[in-house]
Protein backbone atom coordinates (compact mmCIF):
# COMPACT_ATOMS: atom_id res chain seq x y z
CA UNK A 1 0.00 0.00 0.00
CA UNK A 2 2.84 2.38 0.58
CA UNK A 3 5.45 1.50 -2.00
CA UNK A 4 6.26 5.05 -2.98
CA UNK A 5 5.38 8.54 -1.98
CA UNK A 6 2.45 8.89 -4.33
CA UNK A 7 0.31 6.11 -3.02
CA UNK A 8 -1.29 8.02 -0.22
CA UNK A 9 -2.56 10.59 -2.71
CA UNK A 10 -4.27 8.28 -5.14
CA UNK A 11 -8.04 8.59 -4.99
CA UNK A 12 -9.22 5.34 -3.47
CA UNK A 13 -11.13 3.02 -5.72
CA UNK A 14 -12.47 -0.35 -4.64
CA UNK A 15 -13.29 -2.77 -7.41
CA UNK A 16 -13.78 0.14 -9.75
CA UNK A 17 -16.19 1.87 -7.45
CA UNK A 18 -15.19 5.27 -6.23
CA UNK A 19 -14.68 5.02 -2.54
CA UNK A 20 -13.72 8.65 -2.48
CA UNK A 21 -17.38 9.69 -2.39
CA UNK A 22 -17.85 7.92 0.90
CA UNK A 23 -14.61 9.37 2.20
CA UNK A 24 -15.72 12.87 1.34
CA UNK A 25 -19.13 12.31 2.90
CA UNK A 26 -17.78 10.65 6.03
CA UNK A 27 -17.01 13.74 8.15
CA UNK A 28 -20.67 14.67 8.11
CA UNK A 29 -21.28 11.67 10.37
CA UNK A 30 -19.09 13.29 12.98
CA UNK A 31 -21.31 16.34 13.41
CA UNK A 32 -24.60 15.07 14.84
CA UNK A 33 -27.62 17.33 14.91
CA UNK A 34 -29.73 17.55 17.98
CA UNK A 35 -32.87 19.47 18.76
CA UNK A 36 -32.54 19.18 22.51
CA UNK A 37 -31.65 21.93 24.89
CA UNK A 38 -29.27 19.78 26.94
CA UNK A 39 -27.14 17.45 24.83
CA UNK A 40 -24.36 15.02 25.38
CA UNK A 41 -20.84 16.37 25.74
CA UNK A 42 -19.90 15.79 22.12
CA UNK A 43 -22.76 17.81 20.68
CA UNK A 44 -22.44 20.48 23.36
CA UNK A 45 -18.79 21.05 22.54
CA UNK A 46 -19.46 21.18 18.83
CA UNK A 47 -22.27 23.66 19.26
CA UNK A 48 -20.11 25.81 21.51
CA UNK A 49 -17.24 25.79 19.04
CA UNK A 50 -19.51 26.59 16.13
CA UNK A 51 -21.05 29.48 18.01
CA UNK A 52 -17.60 30.83 18.84
CA UNK A 53 -16.35 30.60 15.28
CA UNK A 54 -19.47 32.05 13.69
CA UNK A 55 -19.54 34.98 16.09
CA UNK A 56 -15.89 35.72 15.46
CA UNK A 57 -16.08 35.41 11.73
CA UNK A 58 -19.44 36.80 10.76
CA UNK A 59 -19.58 39.84 13.00
CA UNK A 60 -17.76 42.03 10.47
CA UNK A 61 -20.38 41.58 7.79
CA UNK A 62 -23.55 43.51 7.23
CA UNK A 63 -26.87 41.72 6.99
CA UNK A 64 -26.39 40.90 3.33
CA UNK A 65 -23.05 39.27 4.03
CA UNK A 66 -24.41 37.38 6.99
CA UNK A 67 -26.67 35.37 4.71
CA UNK A 68 -23.47 33.50 3.79
CA UNK A 69 -23.05 32.22 7.37
CA UNK A 70 -24.27 28.71 6.69
CA UNK A 71 -21.99 28.37 3.68
CA UNK A 72 -18.90 29.61 5.47
CA UNK A 73 -19.49 27.62 8.63
CA UNK A 74 -20.02 24.38 6.75
CA UNK A 75 -16.91 25.21 4.71
CA UNK A 76 -14.70 25.60 7.75
CA UNK A 77 -16.12 22.48 9.36
CA UNK A 78 -15.59 20.43 6.22
CA UNK A 79 -12.04 21.54 5.57
CA UNK A 80 -11.08 21.25 9.23
CA UNK A 81 -12.52 17.81 9.68
CA UNK A 82 -11.15 16.37 6.46
CA UNK A 83 -7.69 17.73 7.22
CA UNK A 84 -7.70 16.34 10.73
CA UNK A 85 -9.01 12.96 9.65
CA UNK A 86 -6.29 12.82 7.02
CA UNK A 87 -3.66 12.85 9.72
CA UNK A 88 -4.75 9.44 10.94
CA UNK A 89 -2.61 6.63 9.57
CA UNK A 90 -3.45 5.14 6.22
CA UNK A 91 -6.21 7.61 5.51
CA UNK A 92 -6.99 9.62 2.44
CA UNK A 93 -7.38 13.38 2.55
CA UNK A 94 -9.69 14.81 -0.10
CA UNK A 95 -8.23 18.27 0.26
CA UNK A 96 -4.91 17.10 -1.13
CA UNK A 97 -6.56 16.90 -4.53
CA UNK A 98 -6.30 20.16 -6.44
CA UNK A 99 -9.45 19.32 -8.30
CA UNK A 100 -11.52 19.41 -5.16
CA UNK A 101 -9.98 22.58 -3.83
CA UNK A 102 -10.51 24.34 -7.11
CA UNK A 103 -14.08 23.12 -6.99
CA UNK A 104 -14.47 24.81 -3.62
CA UNK A 105 -12.54 27.99 -4.30
CA UNK A 106 -13.73 29.09 -7.72
CA UNK A 107 -17.50 29.06 -7.08
CA UNK A 108 -17.15 30.81 -3.75
CA UNK A 109 -14.84 33.50 -5.06
CA UNK A 110 -16.91 33.98 -8.21
CA UNK A 111 -20.08 34.23 -6.15
CA UNK A 112 -18.60 36.97 -4.02
CA UNK A 113 -17.21 38.94 -6.96
CA UNK A 114 -20.34 38.67 -9.09
CA UNK A 115 -22.50 39.73 -6.14
CA UNK A 116 -20.30 42.76 -5.78
CA UNK A 117 -20.49 43.63 -9.46
CA UNK A 118 -24.22 43.25 -9.58
CA UNK A 119 -25.13 45.18 -6.46
CA UNK A 120 -22.36 47.71 -6.01
CA UNK A 121 -20.90 48.10 -9.47
CA UNK A 122 -19.08 51.35 -8.90
CA UNK A 123 -17.53 50.25 -5.65
CA UNK A 124 -16.44 46.91 -7.11
CA UNK A 125 -14.79 48.59 -10.07
CA UNK A 126 -13.18 51.06 -7.73
CA UNK A 127 -11.28 48.20 -6.09
CA UNK A 128 -9.11 48.02 -9.17
CA UNK A 129 -7.40 51.25 -8.31
CA UNK A 130 -6.03 51.90 -4.83
CA UNK A 131 -6.45 55.38 -3.48
CA UNK A 132 -3.82 57.99 -4.03
CA UNK A 133 -1.89 56.56 -6.94
CA UNK A 134 -0.04 59.02 -9.11
CA UNK A 135 -1.63 59.48 -12.54
CA UNK A 136 1.09 57.96 -14.80
CA UNK A 137 0.92 54.68 -12.90
CA UNK A 138 -2.82 54.20 -13.32
CA UNK A 139 -2.92 51.92 -16.40
CA UNK A 140 -0.26 49.61 -15.08
CA UNK A 141 -1.86 49.48 -11.68
CA UNK A 142 -5.25 48.60 -13.12
CA UNK A 143 -3.68 45.69 -14.98
CA UNK A 144 -1.89 44.53 -11.87
CA UNK A 145 -5.04 44.74 -9.76
CA UNK A 146 -6.99 42.79 -12.35
CA UNK A 147 -4.37 40.06 -12.34
CA UNK A 148 -4.43 39.98 -8.55
CA UNK A 149 -8.20 39.69 -8.58
CA UNK A 150 -8.21 36.75 -10.98
CA UNK A 151 -5.45 35.01 -9.14
CA UNK A 152 -7.46 34.91 -5.90
CA UNK A 153 -9.30 31.63 -6.55
CA UNK A 154 -6.15 29.98 -7.80
CA UNK A 155 -4.30 31.11 -4.73
CA UNK A 156 -7.04 29.81 -2.44
CA UNK A 157 -7.07 26.37 -3.99
CA UNK A 158 -3.34 25.96 -4.45
CA UNK A 159 -2.58 27.22 -0.97
CA UNK A 160 -4.76 24.61 0.66
CA UNK A 161 -3.56 21.79 -1.58
CA UNK A 162 0.09 22.60 -1.23
CA UNK A 163 0.01 22.97 2.52
CA UNK A 164 -1.77 19.73 3.23
CA UNK A 165 0.12 17.75 0.63
CA UNK A 166 3.44 19.09 1.78
CA UNK A 167 2.61 18.23 5.35
CA UNK A 168 1.70 14.66 4.50
CA UNK A 169 4.80 14.27 2.39
CA UNK A 170 7.04 15.55 5.12
CA UNK A 171 5.56 13.16 7.64
CA UNK A 172 6.08 10.31 5.23
CA UNK A 173 9.65 11.29 4.42
CA UNK A 174 10.75 11.82 7.97
CA UNK A 175 9.10 8.56 8.96
CA UNK A 176 11.11 6.92 6.21
CA UNK A 177 14.26 8.58 7.46
CA UNK A 178 13.61 7.26 10.95
CA UNK A 179 13.07 3.81 9.56
CA UNK A 180 16.28 3.92 7.56
CA UNK A 181 18.26 5.29 10.46
CA UNK A 182 17.00 2.65 12.89
CA UNK A 183 19.43 0.06 11.61
CA UNK A 184 22.32 2.52 11.33
CA UNK A 185 22.29 4.44 14.57
CA UNK A 186 19.44 4.36 17.04
CA UNK A 187 20.21 7.72 18.60
CA UNK A 188 19.85 9.60 15.34
CA UNK A 189 16.68 7.67 14.75
CA UNK A 190 15.36 8.87 18.05
CA UNK A 191 16.21 12.45 17.18
CA UNK A 192 14.43 12.04 13.89
CA UNK A 193 11.51 10.54 15.71
CA UNK A 194 11.33 13.58 17.94
CA UNK A 195 11.28 15.73 14.85
CA UNK A 196 8.46 13.58 13.59
CA UNK A 197 6.46 14.15 16.76
CA UNK A 198 6.94 17.88 16.52
CA UNK A 199 5.92 17.78 12.90
CA UNK A 200 2.78 15.90 13.80
CA UNK A 201 1.85 18.58 16.26
CA UNK A 202 2.50 21.16 13.56
CA UNK A 203 0.35 19.27 11.13
CA UNK A 204 -2.56 19.24 13.52
CA UNK A 205 -2.26 22.96 13.84
CA UNK A 206 -1.84 23.44 10.11
CA UNK A 207 -4.93 21.39 9.41
CA UNK A 208 -7.08 23.69 11.44
CA UNK A 209 -5.32 26.86 10.42
CA UNK A 210 -5.72 26.15 6.74
CA UNK A 211 -9.41 25.67 7.17
CA UNK A 212 -9.58 28.95 9.01
CA UNK A 213 -7.54 30.80 6.43
CA UNK A 214 -9.60 29.52 3.53
CA UNK A 215 -12.82 30.55 5.13
CA UNK A 216 -11.43 33.85 6.29
CA UNK A 217 -10.30 34.83 2.83
CA UNK A 218 -13.62 33.94 1.30
CA UNK A 219 -15.31 36.02 3.95
CA UNK A 220 -12.93 38.86 3.17
CA UNK A 221 -13.77 38.76 -0.49
CA UNK A 222 -17.38 38.76 0.55
CA UNK A 223 -16.89 41.75 2.77
CA UNK A 224 -15.38 43.69 -0.05
CA UNK A 225 -18.29 42.95 -2.25
CA UNK A 226 -21.37 43.37 -0.07
Amino acid sequence: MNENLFTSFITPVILGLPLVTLIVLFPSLLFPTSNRLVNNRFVTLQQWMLQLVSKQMMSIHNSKGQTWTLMLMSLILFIGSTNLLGLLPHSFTPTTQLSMNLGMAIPLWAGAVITGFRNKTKASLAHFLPQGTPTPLIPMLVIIETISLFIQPMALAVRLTANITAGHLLIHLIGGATLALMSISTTTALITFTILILLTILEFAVAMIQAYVFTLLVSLYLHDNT
Partner: protein
Amino acid sequence: AAAAAPSLKNAALLRPGVLQATRIFHTGQPNLAPVPPLPEHGGKVRFGLLPEEFFQFLYPKTGVTGPYVLGTGLILRLLSKEIYAITPETFSVISTIGFLVYIVKKHGASVGEFADKLNEQKIAQLEEVKQASIKQIQDAIDMEKSQQALVQKRHYLFDVQRNNIAMALEVTYREQLHRVYREVKNRLDYHISVQNYDASEGTRAHDKLGGEACGAEHLCTAGEGNSRQVHCRSKAARKEGSSSASYVNTSIPIKTARNS
Protein backbone atom coordinates in the same frame (compact mmCIF):
# COMPACT_ATOMS: atom_id res chain seq x y z
CA ALA B 1 -53.90 4.52 11.83
CA ALA B 2 -50.34 4.91 10.71
CA ALA B 3 -51.31 4.82 7.07
CA ALA B 4 -54.38 6.96 7.40
CA ALA B 5 -52.93 9.84 9.40
CA PRO B 6 -51.81 12.85 7.36
CA SER B 7 -48.07 12.69 7.31
CA LEU B 8 -45.07 13.04 5.12
CA LYS B 9 -45.36 9.35 4.49
CA ASN B 10 -48.58 9.71 2.52
CA ALA B 11 -47.81 13.04 0.99
CA ALA B 12 -47.08 12.09 -2.61
CA LEU B 13 -46.94 9.28 -5.12
CA LEU B 14 -43.51 8.10 -4.13
CA ARG B 15 -44.16 8.72 -0.44
CA PRO B 16 -41.05 10.67 0.46
CA GLY B 17 -41.05 9.37 3.97
CA VAL B 18 -41.01 5.77 2.89
CA LEU B 19 -37.55 5.15 4.26
CA GLN B 20 -38.58 6.33 7.67
CA ALA B 21 -41.92 4.61 7.77
CA THR B 22 -41.65 3.93 11.45
CA ARG B 23 -41.07 7.58 12.31
CA ILE B 24 -44.26 9.45 11.52
CA PHE B 25 -44.11 13.08 12.41
CA HIS B 26 -46.32 14.33 15.19
CA THR B 27 -49.04 11.79 14.87
CA GLY B 28 -48.37 9.73 17.92
CA GLN B 29 -45.78 8.65 20.40
CA PRO B 30 -42.28 9.22 19.11
CA ASN B 31 -41.18 5.73 20.12
CA LEU B 32 -42.96 2.46 19.77
CA ALA B 33 -42.52 1.46 23.39
CA PRO B 34 -41.29 2.97 26.62
CA VAL B 35 -37.65 3.06 25.66
CA PRO B 36 -35.35 1.88 28.44
CA PRO B 37 -33.10 4.68 29.68
CA LEU B 38 -29.51 4.73 28.55
CA PRO B 39 -26.89 3.75 31.11
CA GLU B 40 -24.91 6.59 32.57
CA HIS B 41 -21.48 5.18 31.87
CA GLY B 42 -20.41 3.07 28.92
CA GLY B 43 -18.93 -0.36 29.18
CA LYS B 44 -15.53 -0.63 30.82
CA VAL B 45 -12.63 -1.08 28.42
CA ARG B 46 -8.96 -1.72 28.74
CA PHE B 47 -6.54 0.15 26.50
CA GLY B 48 -9.55 2.01 25.16
CA LEU B 49 -10.34 -0.82 22.79
CA LEU B 50 -10.85 -4.17 24.45
CA PRO B 51 -13.95 -4.61 26.57
CA GLU B 52 -13.57 -5.83 30.10
CA GLU B 53 -15.89 -8.73 29.39
CA PHE B 54 -13.26 -10.25 27.11
CA PHE B 55 -10.78 -10.42 29.96
CA GLN B 56 -13.42 -11.90 32.24
CA PHE B 57 -14.28 -14.42 29.55
CA LEU B 58 -10.72 -15.67 29.32
CA TYR B 59 -10.01 -15.53 33.03
CA PRO B 60 -11.32 -18.99 34.06
CA LYS B 61 -9.20 -20.75 31.45
CA THR B 62 -6.04 -18.67 31.24
CA GLY B 63 -5.95 -16.51 34.33
CA VAL B 64 -4.88 -12.88 34.39
CA THR B 65 -2.07 -13.04 31.83
CA GLY B 66 -4.12 -14.93 29.24
CA PRO B 67 -5.42 -12.03 27.16
CA TYR B 68 -2.04 -10.28 27.27
CA VAL B 69 -0.22 -13.35 25.98
CA LEU B 70 -2.83 -13.67 23.25
CA GLY B 71 -2.38 -10.05 22.25
CA THR B 72 1.41 -10.25 22.20
CA GLY B 73 1.31 -13.41 20.12
CA LEU B 74 -1.05 -11.89 17.61
CA ILE B 75 1.05 -8.75 17.21
CA LEU B 76 4.28 -10.70 16.85
CA ARG B 77 2.68 -12.96 14.25
CA LEU B 78 1.44 -10.00 12.25
CA LEU B 79 4.91 -8.47 12.32
CA SER B 80 6.93 -11.56 11.61
CA LYS B 81 4.79 -12.68 8.70
CA GLU B 82 4.75 -9.12 7.38
CA ILE B 83 1.01 -9.11 7.40
CA TYR B 84 1.62 -5.71 8.89
CA ALA B 85 4.85 -4.28 7.46
CA ILE B 86 6.98 -1.69 9.13
CA THR B 87 6.97 1.27 6.78
CA PRO B 88 7.55 4.99 7.19
CA GLU B 89 3.87 5.14 7.87
CA THR B 90 4.44 3.14 11.03
CA PHE B 91 6.38 5.92 12.62
CA SER B 92 3.78 8.45 11.69
CA VAL B 93 1.24 6.06 13.23
CA ILE B 94 3.23 5.92 16.44
CA SER B 95 3.66 9.67 16.62
CA THR B 96 0.07 10.55 15.68
CA ILE B 97 -1.64 8.01 17.88
CA GLY B 98 0.79 8.70 20.69
CA PHE B 99 0.10 12.40 20.45
CA LEU B 100 -3.66 11.85 20.46
CA VAL B 101 -3.55 9.48 23.42
CA TYR B 102 -1.39 11.93 25.34
CA ILE B 103 -3.79 14.80 24.68
CA VAL B 104 -6.84 12.78 25.65
CA LYS B 105 -5.27 11.47 28.82
CA LYS B 106 -4.13 14.89 29.88
CA HIS B 107 -7.10 17.07 29.00
CA GLY B 108 -9.98 14.67 28.56
CA ALA B 109 -11.53 15.13 31.98
CA SER B 110 -11.27 18.93 31.91
CA VAL B 111 -12.90 19.12 28.49
CA GLY B 112 -15.72 16.93 29.74
CA GLU B 113 -16.20 19.16 32.74
CA PHE B 114 -16.23 22.18 30.49
CA ALA B 115 -18.99 20.64 28.39
CA ASP B 116 -20.95 19.83 31.55
CA LYS B 117 -20.49 23.39 32.74
CA LEU B 118 -21.85 24.73 29.44
CA ASN B 119 -24.98 22.65 29.84
CA GLU B 120 -25.32 23.66 33.45
CA GLN B 121 -25.08 27.32 32.51
CA LYS B 122 -27.85 26.91 29.99
CA ILE B 123 -30.11 25.27 32.53
CA ALA B 124 -29.17 27.75 35.24
CA GLN B 125 -30.12 30.64 33.00
CA LEU B 126 -33.57 29.25 32.35
CA GLU B 127 -33.94 28.22 35.98
CA GLU B 128 -33.16 31.77 37.01
CA VAL B 129 -35.91 33.12 34.78
CA LYS B 130 -38.29 30.63 36.30
CA GLN B 131 -37.21 31.48 39.84
CA ALA B 132 -37.50 35.19 39.16
CA SER B 133 -41.01 34.71 37.89
CA ILE B 134 -41.94 32.60 40.90
CA LYS B 135 -40.42 35.13 43.25
CA GLN B 136 -42.31 37.95 41.58
CA ILE B 137 -45.59 36.15 41.96
CA GLN B 138 -44.76 35.24 45.54
CA ASP B 139 -44.01 38.87 46.32
CA ALA B 140 -47.29 39.88 44.75
CA ILE B 141 -49.11 37.29 46.89
CA ASP B 142 -47.41 38.52 50.06
CA MET B 143 -48.22 42.12 49.29
CA GLU B 144 -51.81 41.20 48.59
CA LYS B 145 -52.02 39.33 51.88
CA SER B 146 -50.53 42.21 53.82
CA GLN B 147 -52.91 44.62 52.17
CA GLN B 148 -55.85 42.40 53.04
CA ALA B 149 -54.65 42.32 56.63
CA LEU B 150 -54.44 46.09 56.60
CA VAL B 151 -57.96 46.31 55.27
CA GLN B 152 -59.10 44.14 58.17
CA LYS B 153 -57.63 46.64 60.57
CA ARG B 154 -59.04 49.65 58.83
CA HIS B 155 -62.05 49.78 61.14
CA TYR B 156 -59.74 50.98 63.90
CA LEU B 157 -59.03 54.01 61.82
CA PHE B 158 -62.68 54.64 61.24
CA ASP B 159 -63.45 54.21 64.94
CA VAL B 160 -60.81 56.71 65.82
CA GLN B 161 -62.10 59.11 63.25
CA ARG B 162 -65.62 58.60 64.44
CA ASN B 163 -64.56 59.24 68.02
CA ASN B 164 -62.68 62.32 66.98
CA ILE B 165 -65.67 63.69 65.16
CA ALA B 166 -67.96 62.87 68.06
CA MET B 167 -65.59 64.63 70.40
CA ALA B 168 -65.37 67.61 68.14
CA LEU B 169 -69.11 67.78 67.84
CA GLU B 170 -69.45 67.46 71.59
CA VAL B 171 -66.92 70.18 72.11
CA THR B 172 -68.62 72.44 69.62
CA TYR B 173 -71.95 71.79 71.23
CA ARG B 174 -70.67 72.54 74.67
CA GLU B 175 -68.90 75.57 73.42
CA GLN B 176 -72.06 76.89 71.84
CA LEU B 177 -74.06 76.03 74.91
CA HIS B 178 -71.59 77.87 77.02
CA ARG B 179 -71.69 80.83 74.70
CA VAL B 180 -75.45 80.88 74.81
CA TYR B 181 -75.33 80.70 78.55
CA ARG B 182 -72.84 83.50 78.73
CA GLU B 183 -74.84 85.69 76.43
CA VAL B 184 -78.01 85.10 78.32
CA LYS B 185 -76.23 85.62 81.60
CA ASN B 186 -74.74 88.80 80.22
CA ARG B 187 -78.12 90.19 79.38
CA LEU B 188 -79.61 89.12 82.61
CA ASP B 189 -76.72 90.57 84.51
CA TYR B 190 -77.23 93.79 82.68
CA HIS B 191 -80.83 93.90 83.62
CA ILE B 192 -80.07 92.97 87.16
CA SER B 193 -77.44 95.63 87.43
CA VAL B 194 -79.85 98.10 85.92
CA GLN B 195 -82.47 97.10 88.42
CA ASN B 196 -79.98 97.17 91.24
CA TYR B 197 -78.88 100.55 90.23
CA ASP B 198 -82.44 101.78 89.97
CA ALA B 199 -83.26 100.20 93.29
CA SER B 200 -80.22 101.48 95.02
CA GLU B 201 -80.56 105.00 93.66
CA GLY B 202 -83.40 105.72 95.93
CA THR B 203 -82.05 104.05 99.05
CA ARG B 204 -78.38 104.82 99.02
CA ALA B 205 -76.42 107.95 98.29
CA HIS B 206 -74.78 108.19 94.86
CA ASP B 207 -71.27 108.92 96.00
CA LYS B 208 -71.35 106.12 98.55
CA LEU B 209 -71.73 103.67 95.77
CA GLY B 210 -69.26 105.47 93.56
CA GLY B 211 -70.87 104.78 90.27
CA GLU B 212 -73.14 102.29 88.65
CA ALA B 213 -70.32 99.94 88.06
CA CYS B 214 -70.43 98.89 91.67
CA GLY B 215 -73.87 97.51 91.11
CA ALA B 216 -72.27 94.53 89.52
CA GLU B 217 -70.10 94.01 92.56
CA HIS B 218 -73.07 93.92 94.82
CA LEU B 219 -74.67 91.53 92.50
CA CYS B 220 -71.71 89.18 92.64
CA THR B 221 -71.56 89.13 96.38
CA ALA B 222 -75.27 88.72 96.73
CA GLY B 223 -75.93 85.99 94.33
CA GLU B 224 -76.34 82.24 94.56
CA GLY B 225 -78.63 80.83 91.95
CA ASN B 226 -82.07 81.02 93.52
CA SER B 227 -81.47 84.04 95.68
CA ARG B 228 -80.77 86.11 92.65
CA GLN B 229 -83.93 84.87 91.14
CA VAL B 230 -85.83 85.98 94.17
CA HIS B 231 -83.96 89.23 94.15
CA CYS B 232 -84.78 89.90 90.58
CA ARG B 233 -88.38 89.09 91.10
CA SER B 234 -88.73 91.30 94.09
CA LYS B 235 -87.08 94.19 92.33
CA ALA B 236 -89.26 93.59 89.33
CA ALA B 237 -92.33 93.65 91.49
CA ARG B 238 -91.37 97.10 92.76
CA LYS B 239 -90.69 98.49 89.38
CA GLU B 240 -93.17 99.19 86.70
CA GLY B 241 -93.15 100.60 83.24
CA SER B 242 -89.60 99.75 82.36
CA SER B 243 -89.27 97.48 79.46
CA SER B 244 -86.31 95.72 80.89
CA ALA B 245 -88.33 94.68 83.90
CA SER B 246 -90.71 92.69 81.79
CA TYR B 247 -87.71 90.95 80.45
CA VAL B 248 -86.81 89.61 83.81
CA ASN B 249 -90.30 88.39 84.62
CA THR B 250 -89.61 85.04 83.15
CA SER B 251 -88.08 82.73 85.68
CA ILE B 252 -85.22 81.03 84.00
CA PRO B 253 -83.38 78.46 86.07
CA ILE B 254 -79.86 79.32 85.25
CA LYS B 255 -77.02 77.40 86.64
CA THR B 256 -74.21 79.77 86.98
CA ALA B 257 -70.63 78.95 87.53
CA ARG B 258 -68.67 80.97 89.98
CA ASN B 259 -66.66 82.85 87.47
CA SER B 260 -69.30 83.72 84.92
